[in-house]
């Protein structure tokens, strides 16, 4: 193929109302042939017939075909009779194929971007519809739990253990690092304030109660929301894309039983355990800081911690962990099951799962803190 040869286009009047279009040279896409406008812009209104002379054509591909397709289309619109016999036979056949199926006119398909008000409106409506959808999904899960309690829910025990392993032991490294650092921060923060009243030993109380009661659960919740909640949404979303969820439905297996239940149970079991673990790691960090930096004795710190830690603190921490776990699994599975059928939708589902989980965790944490305060726990 030689690139130097260029396309040529010429017209010749062959009568009062008929035009011959002379197409020559090389009409390939990479030769950048012209658009059909070049022909019609200069066209005399009297022209009623058109024919083609392609004797000088050396090489062609879609570059010629797209040009001819739009020429023929415009001819049809303007009532110009186009005689295609002068075209290469292959081009005529391909053009006929392209014209064989009429263009689909799909009604009510919005093409352009929405205006600002329309966007605000749809977003608001979507947000308002989200609440009932969440409640509906919650209802499905509760039904499924009831089926589980009466021994009628079906899921594979193996799935539950796999989830437990995935969300529990495999999260230990990241939970350890974060909890250690948060414990360290708490100890420094406490030391700074308590030094003012000369009560540095109370670092132990601050770290112990803080980690066990609130921060252990909160940190674990946020880590697991990012790590596991997003994974749940992506897994279920991908299953939605590849019709795996539909396959469960057609088998008469409720996907909520089979897919959501093991995930919720796994998180409700493992997040409180991770919370407990996080609390101990945080206290260990507090001990390390107090002993090495603030000259508090190991035994002193230990007895002060024991004195501070009442059972109720463990209860608060564990209950929060359980609730957070349920929230994360709920958000992850909800967004996964709501996922659309494209790669982009899976991404949105994962993002939305994390955002929803953290929102739910924060709301739940506030409510529980107020309730526990009122109950004096």
């Amino acid at each position: 193929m030689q690139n130097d040869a260029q396309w040529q286009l010429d017209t010749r009047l062959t009568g009062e109302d008929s035009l011959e279009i002379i197409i020559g040279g090389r009409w390939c896409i990479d030769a950048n042939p012209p658009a059909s406008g070049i022909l019609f812009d200069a066209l005399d209104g009297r022209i009623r017939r058109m024919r083609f002379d392609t004797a000088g054509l050396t090489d062609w591909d879609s570059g010629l075909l797209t040009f001819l397709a739009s020429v023929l289309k415009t001819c049809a619109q303007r009532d110009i009779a186009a005689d295609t016999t002068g075209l290469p036979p292959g081009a005529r056949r391909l053009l006929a194929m392209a014209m064989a199926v009429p263009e689909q006119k799909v009604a009510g398909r919005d093409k352009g971007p929405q205006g600002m008000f329309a966007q605000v409106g749809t977003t608001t409506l979507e947000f308002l519809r989200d609440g009932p959808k969440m409640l509906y999904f919650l209802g499905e899960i509760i039904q499924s739990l009831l089926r589980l309690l009466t021994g009628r829910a079906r899921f594979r025990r193996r799935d539950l253990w796999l989830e437990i392993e995935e969300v529990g032991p495999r999260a230990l490294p990241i939970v350890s690092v974060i909890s250690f650092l948060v414990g360290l921060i708490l100890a420094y923060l406490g030391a700074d304030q308590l030094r003012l009243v000369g009560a540095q030993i109370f670092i132990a109380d601050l770290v112990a109660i803080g980690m066990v009661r609130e921060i252990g659960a909160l940190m674990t919740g946020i880590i697991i929301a990012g790590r596991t909640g997003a994974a749940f949404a992506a897994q279920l979303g991908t299953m939605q894309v590849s019709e795996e969820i539909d396959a469960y439905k057609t088998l008469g297996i409720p996907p909520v039983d089979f897919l959501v239940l093991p995930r919720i149970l796994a998180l409700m079991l493992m997040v409180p355990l991770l919370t407990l673990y996080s609390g101990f790691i945080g206290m260990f960090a507090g001990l390390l800081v107090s002993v090495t930096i603030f000259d508090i004795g190991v035994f002193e710190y230990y007895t002060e911690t024991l004195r501070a830690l009442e059972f109720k603190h463990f209860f608060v921490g564990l209950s929060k962990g359980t609730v957070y776990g349920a929230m994360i699994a709920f958000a992850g599975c909800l967004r996964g099951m709501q996922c659309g059928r494209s790669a982009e939708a899976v991404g949105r589902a994962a993002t939305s799962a994390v955002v929803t989980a953290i929102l739910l965790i924060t709301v739940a944490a506030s409510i529980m803190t107020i309730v526990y305060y009122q109950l004096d726990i």
Partner: protein
Amino acid sequence: MAESSGTPHIEVSDLTIGYGDFVVQRGLDFVVNKGDIFVIMGGNGCGKTTLMRALIGLQRPLQGSVRYSGEDFWGASEEDRQRLKHRLGVLFQSGALWSSLTLADNVALPIAEYTNLSQTRIDEIVSFKLALVGLAGFEDFYPSELSGGMKKRASLARAMALDPDILVIDEPSSGLDPLTAKRLDELIVELRDSLGTTFVVVTHELASILSIGNNSIYLDAETHTMIPTGNPQEALKTGHPKVRHFLTRGAA
């Protein structure tokens, strides 16, 4: 243009494909001429798709060479391989349309990437390609809004966006109704006749094999090697017993 010009376009010699120690097919030797519709047939799991992946640069063969117009594909530098790939159009078995792009964007992406045409020209080409596969007017649809057969046709439109010299098609008519499948076969023959495109069609659809192929090989899953079968019509009458068995659905 003539049916088959007789100039070699793709030459495969002594090719062994597989995964690690696991050999799927060995000793593959065949030549695809310019303007051929070359059918790679064989039962499920015989390595058809693996061979296709070796031809289009997705999986390095364990041994042997693939040459495009005399140029060694796997022996070439990464840059040369990229250049050779531009002349290849691929239609994947499941379509592999980009799900977050509209059909128009799917077809336009390779054109916008490898040419410097104006947007209007690109739009024209896109509309024409979609019309050619019977999807005129579906420019603004997303793949998830289409039926399986429409997705297949849309991905053919994408595969031929740049008028490639070689179109490699994995299972063109699977999931299509007989009439649509026939139209697709006609389109393949038409593109070959008028644009001189070389086709490599990986398939086990008997109707397609017999109606469009002018040269073929059969990949045997048991012996892990190929049987050259030539024109499928003749293979049906006088070919290797295994191939005849396959082409007659076990009747011969």
